């Protein structure tokens, strides 16, 4: 202990030097080992893999330079269709799901932000599906949307409407996957919006009301600008979450009908963790990551530029 020495300087002036110089390294060592082994090392090593014909099952892993990346952009390559089909489907799902996953939670949060008895209970209920895993929710929705015996078609049948094949035709399969995702995850965004709303100063609404602002104009000119950062966070994280789509189609549609719900992550895992061609799969992962990075940055710039009017 070097407490003696720093004791002279006084605890107030240099509060950070009461320890042996090695102590902080001992505290961070376990985490640093994990960080290097499972995040930093792999992030670099993955690039190395992507530059090889890295077949997990074969002893030789020849260097191929940028060939894996070129293949992804070469329409005569066998990788071209699975990869871009996955990218297209993933992009489609982002477009379909994100507007609902932002708008509905905002509506819910506005409702839950009003002071009434039981709001904590309702907030907890709305959040409940999110604590369940995709497997549980997938099985429940697989049953609800079963074309023969599911509750949804049972109700349609009961009121004299034709049954819908929810899982084996398009666009029904996407609708089912989107509805399931909405039910499962809106509680998460609702809680974040709610926290944002609760951080808005009451005086702003007071002032707006004294100025004769109606409910809509309070929403438009106080709530929306006040939530700008929260919007940015929610939109960005929701796009990224939707771009990671895997479990819902894996369970509900197995990527079908055809390969119409096979996502980018599915294309990547099929290539690398089923086919064990890990070099090309790693290349896919970096192209997808780059695409997401570009979208996130664009999103950040667009949402930042808008000044409150």
């Amino acid at each position: 202990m070097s407490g003696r020495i720093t004791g002279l300087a006084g605890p107030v002036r240099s509060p950070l030097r009461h320890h042996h110089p090695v102590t902080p390294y001992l505290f961070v060592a376990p985490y640093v080992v994990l960080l290097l082994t499972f995040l930093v090392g792999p992030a670099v090593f993955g690039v190395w893999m992507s530059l090889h014909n890295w077949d997990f099952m074969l002893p030789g892993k020849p260097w191929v330079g940028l060939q894996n990346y070129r293949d992804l952009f070469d329409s005569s390559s066998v990788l071209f269709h699975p990869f871009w089909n996955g990218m297209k489907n993933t992009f489609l799902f982002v477009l379909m799901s994100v507007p609902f996953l932002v708008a509905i939670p905002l509506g819910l949060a506005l409702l839950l932000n009003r002071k009434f008895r039981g709001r904590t209970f309702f907030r907890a209920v709305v959040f409940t599906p999110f604590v369940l895993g995709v497997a549980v929710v997938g099985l429940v929705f697989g049953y609800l949307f079963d074309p023969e015996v599911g509750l949804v078609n049972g109700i349609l049948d009961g009121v004299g409407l034709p049954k819908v094949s929810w899982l084996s035709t398009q666009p029904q399969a996407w609708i089912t996957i989107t509805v399931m995702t909405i039910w499962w995850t809106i509680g998460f965004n609702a809680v974040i919006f709610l926290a944002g709303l609760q951080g808005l100063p009451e005086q702003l609404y007071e002032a707006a009301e004294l100025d004769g602002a109606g409910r809509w104009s309070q929403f438009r000119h106080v709530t929306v600008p006040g939530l700008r950062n929260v919007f940015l966070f929610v939109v960005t994280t929701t796009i990224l979450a939707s771009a990671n789509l895997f479990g819902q189609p894996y369970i509900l549609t197995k990527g079908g009908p055809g390969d119409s719900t096979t996502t980018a992550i599915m294309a990547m895992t099929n290539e690398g963790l089923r086919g064990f061609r890990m070099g090309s799969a790693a290349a896919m992962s970096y192209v997808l990551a780059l695409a997401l990075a570009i979208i996130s940055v664009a999103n950040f710039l667009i949402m930042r530029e808008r000044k409150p009017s």
Partner: protein
Amino acid sequence: MTTTSPITGAGPGASDPASTEPGGPARRRRAYSRTRVGPLTYVAMTVISLIFILPLLWMLLTTFKTESDARSIPIRVMPSEWTLRAYRLIFDDAANPVYTWLINSLVVSVLHMVLNVVVAAMAAYALSRMTFRGRNLLFGTLIATLFMPGFIFFMPNYLTMSKLGWLDSYWALVVPGAAGAFGVFFLRQFFLAIPRELEESALIDGANSWTIFTRIMLPLSKPALVTLAVLSFLGAWNDFVWPVFVLFSPDRMTLAPGLATLYGAYTTDYPVVMAGATLAAIPVLILYVVVQRYVIEGVANSGLKG
């Protein structure tokens, strides 16, 4: 889109009839119109709550039905006879040992939770209370990894698992996830907000860093530690993509990937499928009921940082 209309209907537009314009200056001072609600809010909230609760009740109810009741059209809401057949069936199924998966999930999730919280708390303590060479580099690296999507680590980490002999074992689910920077970042923020006076008086009493960490920091950080513990437990319990690929043997599976194979094996025997889902849902629902506040506040805080 069954879920959208009632909810969007209850959005800002629909709140008008629920709360009338302020009656007079006296009332205006006490409560603002946006905070007063009428019965319509309760109606809307009840409808919304049912949308979230009914599918789960349907899941639970189905587990007590016979296979033919679960397949009945028109829909039969209540079982014609109550049976535990579904729970018995998965008890005896060697190819789909759901109860083994339940134990596996519990072991994996608890181990992951403990590892994650201990390692993150130690690192966060050093990062928030000590100056040392490399601190900024470590913190910068940690923040950078927060921006990297998890899927770029799949291929190299699969290789690491194989080299370590961790494929098809608990360790593949327990250890790699603990490298995630969220826990360190989250606890560091909490530690920074704790005043230093207590530590300083402990120092004067001759306490060393480890004592201060375990006797002062950790007890003061209980809410943050509980939040992180619960979020880590839920994360491991619900993790899907990774276990689907790193676990193969029926008796090594956890519930999440196991349920997908159960669904594949029993396709339309829905009482069995729902029994599996129920066994996976009950532990987290109980946990959620007990620590609901920690979970929600943890999530809410993660948003405010953004």
